[in-house]
């Protein structure tokens, strides 16, 4: 479904990511792990078209390397960057409506209401606060709203950048329940997450990134050993 070939990104003259190749099949959950500064977020930004890059990105047999962010999004890629996608001055309802805006032309008002009902089954907290401005939600609720915004668009591929950052243990549990739900529904997910143990449990495939290069990859079960995780984060 998604092929990233020889992805290389520079920030000015500094090399952030070099010759990264990733492949994700439909319905897979793919995790990219590595210590801070390894280049995980850079890879996601490059795939989503937020930053410039060298190399090639192919989504459903279409070269999307040089497309703009909104064009990539309209192909069915939902990106949840680190830092949330909520509009703080808009209500929860309007946040979801803006996220669904491009689908309103095809799905219409009925489609939006149906999607909204589906979203509220998993995000009951948001339903209670539908008329509240997003800026008044807690950090965790804003993160959940961001995920809801991604899901309401019916994406084919969801890209999550550290979705559990700053969440309480209860919300982290809810979050991974939602990721499990995505997996059951054959949604393809690319995730970068500091909570490696939990991520590897839900993932099918893992890429291990170090200093901007993929140094190891394979089935997630091969990475379910603490020594591998320690190596990823503490070196050795």
């Amino acid at each position, binding site marked *: 479904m998604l092929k990233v070939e020889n992805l290389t990104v520079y920030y000015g003259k500094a090399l952030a990511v070099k010759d990264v190749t990733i492949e994700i099949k439909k319905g897979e959950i793919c995790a990219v792990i590595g210590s801070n500064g390894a280049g995980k977020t850079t890879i996601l930004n490059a795939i*989503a078209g*937020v930053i410039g890059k060298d190399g090639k990105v192919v989504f459903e047999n279409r070269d999307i390397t040089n497309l*703009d*962010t*909104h064009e990539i*999004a*309209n192909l069915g890629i*939902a*990106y*949840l*960057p680190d830092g*949330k*996608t*909520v*509009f*703080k*001055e*808009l209500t929860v309802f*309007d*946040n979801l*409506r*803006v*996220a669904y*805006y*491009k689908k*309103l032309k095809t799905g219409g008002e009925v489609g939006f209401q149906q999607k909204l009902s589906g979203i509220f089954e998993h995000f009951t907290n948001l339903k209670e606060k539908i008329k509240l401005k997003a*800026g*008044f*939600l*807690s*950090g965790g609720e*804003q993160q959940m709203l961001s995920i809801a*915004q991604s899901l309401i*668009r019916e994406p084919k591929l969801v890209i999550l950048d550290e979705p559990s950052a*700053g969440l309480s243990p209860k919300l982290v549990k809810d979050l991974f329940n939602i990721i499990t739900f995505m997996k059951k529904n054959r949604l393809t997910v690319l995730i970068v997450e500091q909570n490696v143990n939990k991520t590897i449990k839900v993932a099918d495939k893992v890429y291990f990134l170090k200093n901007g290069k993929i140094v190891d990859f394979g089935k997630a079960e091969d990475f379910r050993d603490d020594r591998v995780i320690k190596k990823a984060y503490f070196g050795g």
Partner: protein
Amino acid sequence: MLGGMLQFYFISIHVPLVASLFLVSLIVGFLGYAIHFVFVKNTKNPTELSLIILTIGLAMVIRGTAMLIFGKNAHSVGQFLPFESVTVFGLTFSSQYLVVLVGALILAGLLFYVLNLTNFGKVMLAASQNPLACSIFGIDVEIVKSVSFFLSGFLGAVGGSIIVPISFAKYNIGLMMGLKGFSASVVGGFGNNIGAIVGGLIIGISESLSAGYISSSYKDAVAFFIMIIVLFIKPSGIFGSKDVERV
């Protein structure tokens, strides 16, 4: 300024009033669109400050061009209504003030409708808060910005057209009005439509009172004096809410 000058021009070549208003608003609206399309959109690594400086520079160019074309003199534009004055509760004022009042209310209502009750208006608000998120949701933010620039030019042109029968059309009339409009927004609460109208009324009434009771020489200073007081007492403005952010 441009709205007023073009209004003067079209009226002088005998274009009917309504058609002239329509033409002026469309021309200035499309000029706003073009400014975004040619200059703002193509600015490399834009920051808020660089864009502010860019647009101030463009405003100077437009003012200078208007001066070259229409000259430095003030031109009079006739009132819109066939009668000179209106008397309400014993108070007599120029009929053009009624046009300005009704025009302002219609424009504010239109803006309120577009921004708060249409999907595209919500998208405009969203894009102003978090453009990256809008792109991530598949929205072409450059189109949203272009429409914002068109609307800005359109509204400014209508405002300029209806005010020139009172203020006369001159190449530099917009500067002080823009600054006072900015003060009105700050007093009422930045980003709040109703606040801008109330802020404008407060500043306008205060100016008139100061001209009557103190001296007309200090009239223009009143707007900025009120703005400074409001910034000291309630920086968010009368209708503005504090930015409350939970993390």
